[in-house]
């Protein structure tokens, strides 16, 4: 395949993404907007794959488009069952105009700066360092090496971000009521897909050490299993209750932090794994992170505290 043929594909993808973004942002029906956003996410995953970022493509398809799309669709249902949709008042013309000019100005400046920076600097950047140290990281996939070793501190804090969001969602009230039971075809499909998703999550987790994949993609796949079970009419999406649920939710960052602190002996810093153990420790952290991510994503999809849980707490507020 010649270089030019691929560039045509690039231009087409870019145009498609632009159209989808504009349509998603300005479509008249919110439902349509969300569907377009999900499509936008999937096409973005294609763009990631085209830019040789398969890890990101997997994450975008499962999390950025899949889980986020499911969240948005569920939120739209709140709208229908709840209060009437308030017709959104338009902004005065001067605001629209000034914001538009401002944003266009910012966009052109940023584009100019990007072109300038891009033209003047094209080297391996940090990629060279990663390649040089990859053999010492314990894993063969450079992205996993960055996520769980070189920049593991980012990932630890990121799990904390997910936990903060989960705690926030839980304190906001009980979960949505379970959907009405689905028909036989869907129920069968769910019964059939769920084990498959669990197996593929395990595969993606395992393969992440040396090929695209890892804890986040695996966690999202597991979460997809939970979300599908919920759509099939399952009340708790297969999650355990009470103490075990809480333990799974904090387990990812807990094990991560514990390993990071335990590594800190002698001259070693936080998260400085012993070299021989790095691969094993990373796998251990990833297993717990996968479970935490999956549980957190399913819980935020349920939209709050599932009602039968946590009997020590009062139900509802208002």
């Amino acid at each position, binding site marked *: 395949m010649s270089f030019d043929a691929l560039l045509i594909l690039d231009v087409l993808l870019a145009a498609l993404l632009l159209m989808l973004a504009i349509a998603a942002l300005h479509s008249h029906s919110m439902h349509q907007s969300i569907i377009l956003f999900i499509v936008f996410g999937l096409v973005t995953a294609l763009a990631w794959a085209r830019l040789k970022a398969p890890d990101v493509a997997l994450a975008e398809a499962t999390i950025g488009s899949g889980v986020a799309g499911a969240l948005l669709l569920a939120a739209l249902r709140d709208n229908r069952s709840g209060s009437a949709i308030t017709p959104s008042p338009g902004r005065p013309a001067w605001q629209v105009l000034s914001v538009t000019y401002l944003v266009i100005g910012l966009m052109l400046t940023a584009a100019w700066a990007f072109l300038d920076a891009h033209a003047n600097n094209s080297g391996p950047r940090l990629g060279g360092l990663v390649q040089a140290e990859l053999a010492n990281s314990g894993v063969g996939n450079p992205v996993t090496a960055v996520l769980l070793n070189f920049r593991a501190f*980012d990932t630890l804090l990121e799990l904390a971000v997910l936990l903060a969001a989960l705690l926030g969602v839980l304190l906001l009230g009980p979960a949505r009521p379970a959907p009405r039971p689905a028909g036989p075809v869907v129920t069968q499909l769910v019964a059939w897909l769920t084990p498959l998703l669990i197996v593929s999550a395990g595969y993606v987790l395992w393969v992440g050490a040396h090929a695209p994949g890892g804890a986040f993609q695996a966690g999202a796949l597991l979460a997809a299993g939970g979300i599908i079970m919920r759509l099939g009419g399952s009340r708790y999406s297969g999650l355990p209750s009470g103490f075990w649920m809480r333990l799974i939710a904090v387990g990812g960052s807990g094990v991560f932090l514990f390993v990071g602190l335990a590594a800190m002996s002698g001259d070693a810093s936080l998260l400085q794994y012993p070299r021989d153990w790095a691969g094993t420790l990373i796998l251990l952290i990833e297993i717990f992170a996968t479970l935490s991510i999956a549980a957190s994503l399913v819980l935020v999809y349920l939209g709050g505290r599932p009602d039968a849980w946590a009997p020590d707490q009062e139900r509802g507020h208002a």
Partner: protein
Amino acid sequence: MNEAMALTIALPLFGALAAAAWPGRSSVIGILSVLLSGAAVTWLFTLVMTHGEAYQLLGGWQAGLAIALHADFLAAVMLLLTALVALAISVYATCYFRSPRDAARFWPLWLLLLAALNGLFLSADLFNLYVTLELLGLSAVALTALSGKRAAIRAALRYLLVGLLGSLGYLAGVAILYTGFGTLDMQQVGERIAVDPASEIALILMTGGLLLKTALFPLHFWLPAAHSNAPAPVSAALSALVVKAGFYLVLRLWTEVFAEAISPQGAMLIGLLGCAAIIWGSWQALKAERLKLLAAYSTVAQLGYLFVGLMLLFTTPMGQDYELVLGAIMLMALTHGFAKSSLFLAIGVVQQRAGHDRIAELDGTSQRLPATTFAIALAGTALIGLPPSGAFLGKWHLLSASIDAGQWLLVLVMSIGSLLAAAYVFRVLGHAFGNAAFASRPVNMALQEWPALALGLVATLLLGLGSHWIWAFLEISS
């Protein structure tokens, strides 16, 4: 030394996880974690004071590849402020959130917020700072919504969207910087910054995003609702610490990363916005009918002083004057941190006792809640900048630096701001000391009253009388 840095972040994080896993024990776990991480901060602080800056590459990888932690004097001071204010807020919170349900909701998020703050003060990596910003933002939003009241939820939602916009602006700047310079390490980026398009647009995007989070006028529109509708301990943390974190990052980026790329016009612009913030915030505080709203607008105004200081920093030549201004900024930030948390905690006591916080109906508070009223008076003294508060010295140095630089507008604005502050503080005190029947019965609330009092005392007496060490240390370290 390096253990101390790691522990200041790891301890509150560990506490948060434990408190989330055992909600029934969350108060005990919470207090314990705050004490332990306070001890780690104190340890780190003494180490920085005796041995100088601490620097560590996490994971033992080389610079650039690893995330670096860096504790200099400024970071150590901010950590200490956070630890002390957090301790007072935590003691207060054990009484404020009495029901186990509320406590179980408060503590894990509060500890996550502390971990994010400590991480933000220590991190020397541009992307890692983004993650700490998001952790800070999301936990702060969740805490704002804690009461579940409609106004609080609405404020929290807006706070979240604004915060996300701010952090994505910051992240866009980081993306441009990585395109241009190929690294995320603050020190390495700082060495490569030049007057070129990438540096300039990154400066605009990152500063703009952070100003949105720091609520500098006219980007403050979200702050009064969020700060005034959160539960009292959360308001105290938001006003005293969370907005400071945004300012801290701006200060850090401007002095350490973008110093080469900042034009005098840019510094002027920030200074003018600071002036507008002082006038507008003070005026709105004067007009406010509720105490919490007054305190929130006062935060808008006080942030203005910090940015006026930032402008002076970039118009004063390096040397002793530079350190005077830097010390003044730090002192203003510290004083405001202690005073505003004291004020919000005290308002919380008044609100719980009286059932409202309408200023016009506060008469008689001083008889029922003498300690709390005294705390409000102390905090007010510091907000106005009367001697012997720390803000007095801070403002004094800012004023003399403005006079030296011939910036008469700043002198005028700061004087007007102080007068307005005096007006809004005395308006509150006038009512509080007024004689009238106070509807509620006197209750011994020592554990809830003394944190505010202690913070107020630190703001007025300790920082005012003992602040010379800041300059002494800045001179030694330069």
